[in-house]
Structure formats: C-alpha cells, structure tokens
C-alpha cells in the first residue's frame, strides 16, 4: 500500500491507496472507499465511488490537483511538512499573492512591531499592505521596488525578537 498525504484548504488527509482489479481501494478517515476511474477526455472523468457514479473534472497545475465534482471545486496539494499554509505564509511576511512590490517601508536591522506595515504589493489594481505577523527585526530585504514577485515569495526576511 502506498500512502498519500493530501492537503485541501487547511486540512491534511492521509490516504492509503491499494490497486484493486479495475479500481483503487482508498483507505481514508478509517473508511475504505472503492474508486473506479474512466477517462472521458478534456479533463472529465467518470468515477464510480462505492458503486455510485460521479462526474469529475480534474486538472494538474504543477503538483496541485484541481478537482470539481458534485457542484464544488477543490484543490489538493501534497503535504510534506506538518506546517499549514497559513503558518508558512506568516513566518516571513510572504507575498500573499503574485504582484508588484510598489513600496518597501522598512530597512534591514529595523525593529518592527506586530502588525506594522512592511511593504506594499499591487496586484490586479488592488493595493495590499503586508504587515509583520509579530514583533521582529528585519534581517534582509529580498525584493526591490518595481519587482514582480510570486505568491509566497519572501520579500522581507524577519528574525524573531528575543524577549
């Protein structure tokens, strides 16, 4: 049996997967679910889930699996660390979205308070002020004004202030 750790939203699911005849037995949340898949083309799949027939649309984006079924859309990504995305995003005041850095409001070595504005990001015509998640010292600035950064990029590196 191989084991997948899938993150959807803030929740990590562990799924044991065993090939079985035409389908796959998935052990998840203390249950066993038999899934049979048929590729209908153009991202559409017929999934037989414990005998019930579902239509599923699926697409890969890098390592993320986007999925639509039963009227809802989900994104699953492989969970490698036990850290959730929210914690990762706040550790170094990462860019919450792809965008252009329009202003940097701090300098290396500077002490900042929790909630203090660090830099301003502009994406899709909206200005977003990125704030420090906690009291900290600015270690390094890793982007310049005018630079396009990816979502999740570390723009301002912080080191925790010793109490």
């Amino acid at each position: 049996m191989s084991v997948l750790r899938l993150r959807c939203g803030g929740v990590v699911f562990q799924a044991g997967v065993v090939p079985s005849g035409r389908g796959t037995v998935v052990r998840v949340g203390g249950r066993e679910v038999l899934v049979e898949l048929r590729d209908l083309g153009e991202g559409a799949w017929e999934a037989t889930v414990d005998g019930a027939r579902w239509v599923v649309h699926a697409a890969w984006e890098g390592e993320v699996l986007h999925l639509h079924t039963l009227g809802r859309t989900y994104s699953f990504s492989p969970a490698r660390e036990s850290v959730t995305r929210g914690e990762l995003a706040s550790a170094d005041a990462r860019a919450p979205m792809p965008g252009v850095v329009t202003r940097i409001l701090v300098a290396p070595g500077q002490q900042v308070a929790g909630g203090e504005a660090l830099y301003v990001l502009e994406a899709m015509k909206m200005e977003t002020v990125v704030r420090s998640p906690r009291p900290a010292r600015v270690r390094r600035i890793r982007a310049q004004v005018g630079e396009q950064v990816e979502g999740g990029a570390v723009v301002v590196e912080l080191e925790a202030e010793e109490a």
Partner: protein
Amino acid sequence: MARGVKSPRPPFAKVLVANRGEIAVRVIRACRELGVRTVAVYSEVDAASPHVLLADEAVCLGANEPAESYLNIGRIVDAARRTRAEAVHPGYGFLAENPEFAHACREAGLVFVGPSAEVIAALGDKDRARKLADEVGVPTVPGHPPADDETLERAAHRVGFPVLLKAAAGGGGKGMRVVHDPVQFREALHSARREVRSAFGDDAVLIERYLERPRHVEVQILADTRGSAVHLGERECSVQRRHQKVIEECPSPAVGPELRARLCEAALRLVRAAGYVNAGTVEFLLDREGRFYFLEVNTRLQVEHPVTEMVAGVDLVHAQLRVAAGEPLPPSLAEVTLRGHAVEARVYAEDPEQGFAPSPGRILCLREPQLPGVRVDSGIRAGQRVPVEYDPILSKVVAWAPDREAAVAKLVQALRDYVILGPRTNLNFLLDVLSHPDFLAGELSTHFLEEHFPAWRAPEPEEEVVAVAAALATRSRPKTAAMNVRPPDPWDRLHGAHLP
C-alpha cells in the same frame, strides 16, 4: 438572412471596443447582433483572449501595463482612426469614465458611446455631482469635498466618525476606506491617496459620513440626444466586499412600487438636470426607514447591467449604440414592465481563503453552465492565462425566473455546474453566500458579507472526494501532465512510501 425580413439599419458601420475581458466580449456580441463590424484592442498578454478572437479586426496596443495599453488614450484613438471605426465603446473601468478620453474621441471625429466629456467630468466628480443633487432636491449624505489632509481631518471630526474615504474620480471601490478611529485617519487617507493615484492618476479624496447597515440600490437610466430620458427600474447590489459588488439583483427585495416611483423619479430629475445622454446609473444608499441618499452617478454601462436586461427585456448595449448614433429612444421604453426576477454572481479569480487575494494563472479546464434562463457573460477560454495586470473578474452568471426564490435556486444550480480549474475562484464562496438564510430572506445590507462571512473557509471535502483525489493522484498524472512543464514530482516520491 431570410428573404423578406427587413432588418433595421445598423447604427454604425464599425465600432472599436476599448476594453478587454467579459465586457469587451459582451459589447462585441451586441455589435454583431446589430450588423456592426468590430475592432478589438489588446495588450500583448491578451493576444489570444476571447474578445480578440470574436472581433472582426484587432489592434495590439502594446505592453501589458494598463498605461501602455487599455489606459493609453493616444494609441486607442490612433487604432480607431487607422481601422476607420466610426465609434468607440469604452465598456466599464479603464477609460470609461475618463472625460479626456471622451474628448479625444470627439476631437478625432469619433463617436464616444456614452455621455459627453463635459457631463462625465461634471458627474464623475462626486463632489460636483453632490452639489447638483442638492440643487435639484435629491438627498445626499453629509460629507466634505476633496481638500488637503488637514482640512479633511477637521471635517471628519465635524461630520462624525465613522467616516468613509473615497476617490473623487472613478469608481469600483478603489481607494475606499472606512475610518472608525480618529487616530487612524491620516494613515488611511495617505493609503487611499496612493491607491487612487495609481488607478486614476489623480489623488483627490473626499469624505462622507458612514451609514450603518444601509442597502445599496441603484437606478438604471437611458437618455437620448433629443432630451428624452427613461428609467428601467432599480437593482440591489448590497452584497459587497470592500465596496466591490459580488451579487446583484433586479428588482430589489426592499423596494415596493411607491418607493420605486420616488427613487426612479429622483434619478431622472438628476440626469435631466445634468443634460445626460446615453446609459447611466444613479446609485443610492437606502436606510432601514426607507430613506434614500444619493451616492454617485456611474456615467457608463455597469458590470451588473444584465439583471436589468433580463427583467426589463431590453438590450442596454443595443440602446447605447442607437442613442450614440443619434436615434431617439423607442417609445416602448417609456412603458417598460419589470417581469420576474434576475440575480447575478460575479466570478473572480481570487482565493477567498487567502483574504481574497487575486489568483492569476492558466485556465486548465473550463465548462460553462447551460440552463434555460441562465446567461453567462464570460471573458475567458480554456488554456488562457489569467493575467496579473488586470481586474480579476472572469465572468458573470445571471439567472432569471418568475420569482426571487426560483431565480436564486437556478443561479445556485448554474454555479454548481460551473467548472473552472486552474486559478482559485470564488465559486464555493458564492454558493455559500447564496444559501445563507438572510440572503434567501432578502435581509441585505452593504455589511452582509463582513457580518455573516468574516472568515470564510471552504467546507472540508467528504472522505469520498478525498478518495477520488487520491485515486486520480495515483492514476491520471502522466496523461494530463502534458499541459505543464513540471518540476521534480513529490507525488512520485510519496508513492514509494509504505505504511508501517
């Protein structure tokens, strides 16, 4: 065309559509219906966008930055001249409410599909519009016109906190800030000025008293060059996030015949006094006691115009083009009956679980809902990359039914059927909003979302859904991965792991 069928004369031979995305597609479609040839304009990243593919001709304006493309007046006017277009339709956003653009079109001998530059300047300036409203007896919210920081701060204390900051020019919620605490006034003002300057190139900001829990209700009007003006009823757009409308409907569940008559009469009084021509919208706040206050005039087509079209049975873009060509409003418009109910949801490329951050990216899989009475105004196609440079709206889904309850149910079904994979979208969020008991009861205010959905999380997937994802993860990878060049694959490593 069938022999013997007399088709009306097209209002123009050729129109240039100075916009992108769903609104450009929608305007080009209307032109085609009227037998008008179309010219699309685009930035480099939009070269294969639906609006470009749909038009008869297309002109590349330049680089992706709005200033190099969709905000570049000189290049757009030049494109219209070179393609011998007779008229320019600005859509909404970008240059739609820029009087210099309307003026430049007129100077170049082009018909601008909208009011004159003078009227746009007078009404687009919210301070001047308020003065006009005061003159004709349309009630307004207490406030102060644009001024320097110190004057505005003093005025804020006089008007009373909380106060609302907003751009003197433009719309769409840019620069809007609510300030509850006087200590935060200066920081909010400076931030608003920066945002307004980057959006409109002008940092004039005004303040108003902030009304608690009002509804947003607006009146659609149409006026021709012969001095005739009509209204097409109201829309309710109270479901907003950071002053961006999310769900709109026609008619408003809070407006009965008597209030509708007063509201629409006030809107007409204002646009007649302004010498307004073409389609426009007069926005009001409506308080719990049924008092309404003039907010602003949008001197263009609104994003949410389809709900009016479905209930009034009128094509507003057709009307805009005919009025712009100098034709009178047809007499039938003066006697429009609102029939049934329509609800619209705006679909955005944004991640509601990450503070609604824009979520650009490639559309990997797309399937639009197809139901009778459902209209999808879309600006995307499969394989297209949603660019980071522009507003994240992807499409609008509008549902019509004989009553509100049935229209909402139909919209829910349409949104459930809608498959958009790639960028994160607000589809799940919209479904939860439309199912909220207060929404279903029509209990709305502009604070609806912050009150009921302060920190929305997507519902956790059922175990069966996780099982399907796991089964796909072990099976489908090699076949569908062709769309992307992939980095080294962590799934492959995980497959080797064994349960202890």
